[in-house]
C-alpha cells in the first residue's frame, strides 16, 4: 500500500508559507481598494480635461487633434504606471528612442487588459493601436480611441483597415498590434495573424517586436481582482521588411518575429525564475 501524499511544507515552513500568502492577499486587497478608485479619478480627470484642452490645442496652438489625444493617452499610461508602482514593479529593457524608428509597427504579445496601459513605458507618444471591436464598447474610452485614430480591425474589414493603417503610417504615426488577436489564456504565445506583417511589407515600414510578461499575474483575462506583480517589457531590435517582398514573404516575416518573441519570452521567464530563487 502506498503512503498518502503529504503536503510539501510541514511545521514551521507551512506557517511561513501561510503567513506570506495572507500578507500577499492583504496587499492585493489594499491594492484593489486604492488602485481602482484612483483609476476612476484619473479617467474622470482626463474626460473633464479633454473638452478644455483639445479645442485650445487645436485653435490656439494649431495642433492636430489626433496627435494631441495620442499624447494624452500616453500620459494617461504613464500616470497609470505611477498609480500602480507601489504594488507593481516595472522592469524595462531596450525601451529607448533609438530602438523605435519613426514610424514603425510594434508587435506585442498579449496577456492582459492592462497591456495597452503599459505602452505608457514606450519612449514616444505618437502611436495608435489596432484593436478588435470590443474595446470600442468602453464608452468612457471610445471617443478618445476614435480621436486618436485607433483602427477597429474587426468592423473596418481588411481592405479599409489596411488603407487606414497605411494613412496613419504616412502621417508618421506608429502602429501597435497584438498579432495574437486576443489575450493568451495560458500565458503561452498564441498563433500570430498576418495583418501587421503584411502591412509592414506593403508599406516598407520597420517592425519592432516588444515582449511583455507579468501582466497576466497583475490582471489575468476574465478576472477583476488585481494582484501585485512584476511586469517586464523588452524591445527587441527592429526588423527591416525590405528583405521580405514576395507574395508570401509576410508569412516568413511573421514566423521570424514570432520565433524571436518566443525566445525572448522564454529568456524573460528563466530570468524571472532565477530572481525568485
Amino acid at each position, binding site marked *: 500500500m502506498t503512503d498518502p501524499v503529504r503536503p510539501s511544507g510541514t511545521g514551521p515552513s507551512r506557517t511561513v508559507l501561510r503567513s506570506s500568502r495572507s500578507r500577499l492577499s492583504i496587499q492585493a486587497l489594499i491594492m484593489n481598494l486604492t488602485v481602482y478608485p484612483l483609476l476612476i479619478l484619473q479617467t474622470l480627470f482626463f474626460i473633464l480635461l479633454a473638452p478644455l484642452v483639445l479645442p485650445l490645442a487645436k485653435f490656439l496652438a494649431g495642433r492636430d487633434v489626433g496627435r494631441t489625444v495620442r499624447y494624452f493617452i500616453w500620459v494617461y499610461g504613464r500616470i497609470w504606471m505611477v498609480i500602480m508602482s507601489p504594488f507593481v514593479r516595472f522592469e524595462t529593457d531596450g525601451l529607448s528612442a533609438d530602438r523605435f524608428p519613426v514610424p514603425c509597427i510594434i508587435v506585442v504579445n498579449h496577456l492582459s487588459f492592462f497591456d495597452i496601459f503599459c505602452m505608457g513605458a514606450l519612449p514616444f507618444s505618437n502611436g495608435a493601436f489596432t484593436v478588435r471591436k470590443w474595446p470600442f464598447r468602453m464608452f468612457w474610452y471610445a471617443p478618445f480611441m476614435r480621436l486618436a485614430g485607433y483602427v477597429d480591425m474587426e468592423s473596418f474589414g*481588411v481592405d479599409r483597415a489596411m488603407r487606414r493603417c497605411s494613412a496613419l503610417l504616412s502621417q508618421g504615426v506608429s502602429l501597435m498590434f497584438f498579432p495574437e*488577436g486576443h489575450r493568451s489564456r495560458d500565458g503561452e504565445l498564441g*498563433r500570430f*495573424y*498576418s*495583418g501587421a506583417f503584411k502591412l509592414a511589407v506593403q508599406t516598407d515600414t520597420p517592425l519592432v517586436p516588444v515582449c511583455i510578461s507579468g501582466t497576466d499575474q497583475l490582471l489575468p483575462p476574465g478576472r477583476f481582482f488585481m494582484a501585485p506583480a512584476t511586469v517586464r517589457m523588452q524591445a527587441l531590435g527592429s526588423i527591416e521588411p525590405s528583405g521580405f517582398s514576395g*507574395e*508570401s514573404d509576410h508569412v516568413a516575416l511573421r514566423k521570424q518575429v514570432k520565433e524571436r518573441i518566443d525566445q525572448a519570452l522564454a529568456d524573460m521567464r528563466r530570468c524571472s525564475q532565477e530572481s525568485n530563487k
Partner: protein
Amino acid sequence: MTQQQIIETVNRALSEEFELEPADMSPEAHLYNDLGLDSLDAVDMVIVLENAFGCKLRDEKAIQNIRTMGDLYAFIEEKKKELE
C-alpha cells in the same frame, strides 16, 4: 492522388502555415468560426495550397464558397480530377 493523400497534404500545408492543430482540422471544422482564420489568411491559404498542389487556384469562382475543411478537400479533389 487519393482522397486521403489530398486530406493529408491540405492538413499539413495549413497546419504549417497557420499553426493549426491537426486534431482540430476535421471535415466539419469551419475555417473562420472554428479554426479562427481571417480574410487575410484566406488569401494566404490559396497561395499555400497552390504551392502544395502545383496548380493555380486563385481564379476559381468555387473557392469563394468554401466554408469548411470538408468543402476545401472536395474543391481540391475536383480540381485535381479536372487536371488529370
